[in-house]
């Protein structure tokens, strides 16, 4: 493998790591303030205990997200200096706003963590809300910057020069809304099912059932609602990609030959050499409909694009299948939760809890898959149709060592954080 491949691997790995912590760090504060609100209203000490337990979790995830985010903002330049040299001035705005939002979040966090018994109760609670809102704002802004890479706008590209730069238009690029909506919902779905799954496991084991049931209910509601809207947001995204990045759409579906009334492939094994897909399930005309809202619309196939502008098809196709599959599963799981509110006896069944335990990691897998779809699907471009990834990479050799260094460091961090969460729960059950 070349330097470029290792640089890409490092970017993918560090982003993939950061995304998990960033999502938890931006969604969990909402669970925390709901529990906190219930404590203020009912004065039931269980809610206070839960709030504080979640707060400790948020602190650990927040700091891991913050330091890995700091590393990422450096990495953008350290790995892709040529990209940042040109892109920095154009899409600087979402980053500078994100810096401000992150600042607000950190300030609110200071108030919240240290404000117990020192600040007026309502103000203290309110700083928790600010943590969540500022976190979500940060997420949206960063995704907007990524949207710009998919839908570059706010400049004219003349003879290799970026001129007439309009940062506001770059911020509000055509992809920002669909991508930000999809990501924000995904963060809520993944974190919510993740947290609910952990509490479901405690209920399943019969530990501290009262507390964990309360925790489960608070956490799952967010995810169940978000999971319901996620397919709609996915549909918007697909239509958007179909319009702006037809090659990415074709790669999602491993669709090689341009045709009208194109079927949707579910599953299948992609042969990139022969350009065929075997063992798939076909839904007639569905791709044409999903992409363009018309059963007979023409969908351009990969064969119609120059070979050196094709992304790796198999990876993108598989990742897309995983993302959509999990999205559907979680929507059904959310539905099951809502039905269980009526049919209380479901909650007595072990299978019910096992189901939610099984769902716990899925949302995060879907998030990773989704980012593979959008990032690998954009290749070979770092700025769609403007700059190639290979032209942006650092001239410094030896990225191999850098990659393995991060792999080592972050693997240890993941193990440590998981172990810390385990200790939090054990302590919570003992008390």
């Amino acid at each position: 493998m070349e330097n470029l491949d290792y640089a890409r691997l490092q970017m993918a790995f560090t982003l993939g790591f950061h995304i998990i912590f960033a999502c938890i760090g931006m969604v969990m504060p909402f669970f925390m303030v709901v529990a906190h609100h219930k404590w203020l209203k009912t004065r039931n000490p269980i809610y206070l205990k839960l709030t504080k337990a979640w707060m400790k979790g948020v602190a650990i995830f927040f700091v891991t997200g913050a330091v890995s985010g700091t590393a990422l903002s450096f990495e953008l330049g350290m790995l892709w200096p040529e990209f940042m040299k040109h892109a920095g001035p154009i899409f600087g705005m979402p980053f500078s706003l994100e810096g401000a939002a992150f600042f607000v979040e950190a300030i609110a966090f200071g108030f919240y963590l240290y404000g117990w018994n020192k600040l007026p109760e309502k103000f203290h609670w309110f700083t928790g809300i600010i943590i969540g809102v500022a976190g979500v704002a940060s997420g949206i802004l960063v995704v907007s910057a990524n949207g710009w890479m998919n839908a570059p706008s706010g400049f004219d590209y003349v003879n290799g020069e970026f001129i007439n730069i309009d940062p506001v238009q770059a911020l509000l690029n055509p992809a920002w809304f669909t991508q930000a909506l999809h990501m924000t919902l995904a963060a809520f779905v993944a974190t919510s099912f993740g947290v609910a799954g952990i509490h479901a496991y405690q209920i399943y084991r019969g530990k501290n059932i009262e507390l964990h049931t309360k925790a489960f209910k608070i956490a799952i509601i967010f995810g169940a609602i978000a999971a319901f809207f996620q397919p709609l947001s996915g549909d918007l995204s697909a239509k958007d990609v179909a319009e702006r990045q037809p090659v990415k759409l074709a790669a999602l579906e491993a669709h090689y030959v341009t045709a009208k009334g194109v079927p949707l492939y579910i599953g299948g094994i992609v042969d990139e050499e022969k350009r065929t897909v075997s063992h798939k399930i076909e839904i007639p005309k569905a791709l044409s409909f999903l992409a363009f809202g018309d059963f007979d619309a023409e969908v351009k196939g990969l064969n119609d694009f120059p070979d050196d502008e094709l992304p790796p098809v198999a990876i993108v196709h598989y990742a897309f299948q995983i993302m959509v599959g999990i999205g559907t599963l979680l929507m059904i799981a959310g539905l099951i939760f809502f039905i269980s509110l009526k049919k209380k006896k479901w909650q007595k069944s072990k299978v019910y809890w096992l189901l939610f335990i099984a769902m716990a990691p899925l949302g995060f897998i879907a998030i990773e898959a989704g980012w593979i779809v959008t990032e690998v699907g954009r290749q070979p471009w770092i700025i769609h149709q403007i700059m190639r990834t290979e032209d942006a990479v650092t001239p410094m050799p030896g990225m191999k060592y850098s990659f393995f260094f991060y792999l080592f460091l972050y693997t240890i961090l993941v193990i440590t954080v998981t172990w810390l969460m385990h200790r939090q729960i054990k302590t919570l059950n003992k008390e």
Partner: protein
Amino acid sequence: MLSVVLFFLFFSLLLYVLLGGADFGAGIVELFTAPSKRNNTREVIYRVIGPIWEANHIWLIILLVILWTAFPGYFYIIVTYLHIPLALVLLGITIRGVAFVFRHYDAVIDQTQFWYNWLFRIGSLLTPIFLGITFGGLVGGRIIISEDYQNLDFYDVFLQPWLNPFSFLMGIFFASICAFLAASFLIGETNGENRKHFSKISAKFTIALVIIGGALFLYGYINNIKFIENFLHNPVSIASVGLSGLLLIPLWKFINNERRLASRFMASLQVFLILFAALYVHFPYLIYTEEKEISLLESTSSASSIENLAITLLIGGLVILPGLFHLMKSFNGIEVYENEK
């Protein structure tokens, strides 16, 4: 509008050096504290820097975003040629950041605290050293800017700009600035035994700072390092550093008289003067390569990018600074001042 951006660039730099620096310094102070008193120090640090520690480090991100948005050519040189020391800075930031939170939010207190504590202390020492090394690399005059990577040695392009005694001295110098700041700030937060302890530590780090600073200048002067030579030939810079040294006298008076806020202000002013001296003589030429000095203003981005950034920074500043001030006021600093009255 460029002046607004420049203001925020240096403002963020100053606050990162003062607040982020004091934060690193707190770990260094803990490292150099006798084992019997470390626990005590640890609690003081948690109480004092805990509420604002994350905010302290966001100044670095603001700095970074300003650089790449407004001065992309400059940013390019830093991240390309100083890739390795920056990676080491990031390693340090990661380790000490997570160690600080883990040690205070781990649900179980057991032997793992030993590891958190040591990672925090060592990370706190190494991170500012690497930051200083990076800065030393930037101004040391050894960067080779070339597109001809095939014919150049890895060592010449990516190692020797920062892997040299000058950069290393700069690293130690910055670490001692951090420790000096932290010790001076912490004195105002404690009483009785702790006060005496931090006063002693503060004295030690002040002496270390003066010695290391002297060594840095001497080394630069003997080896004809332009950054230092320019410095020594500029009356304003010399005066600033001299004044910074003289201010040690009022600083010690304030500390002895328990004027906590005044002593903090004095320590900050001293560091500000050192930073000002370094920037005044060189601005806008803040990168020194083998061949020439590169101006910060040489590769500014387009007027529209600068204008947009300036407006964003102004709005962001209006939101953040009152919040930050209120946070500091709520948990320390000014509260102490009020008690004094």
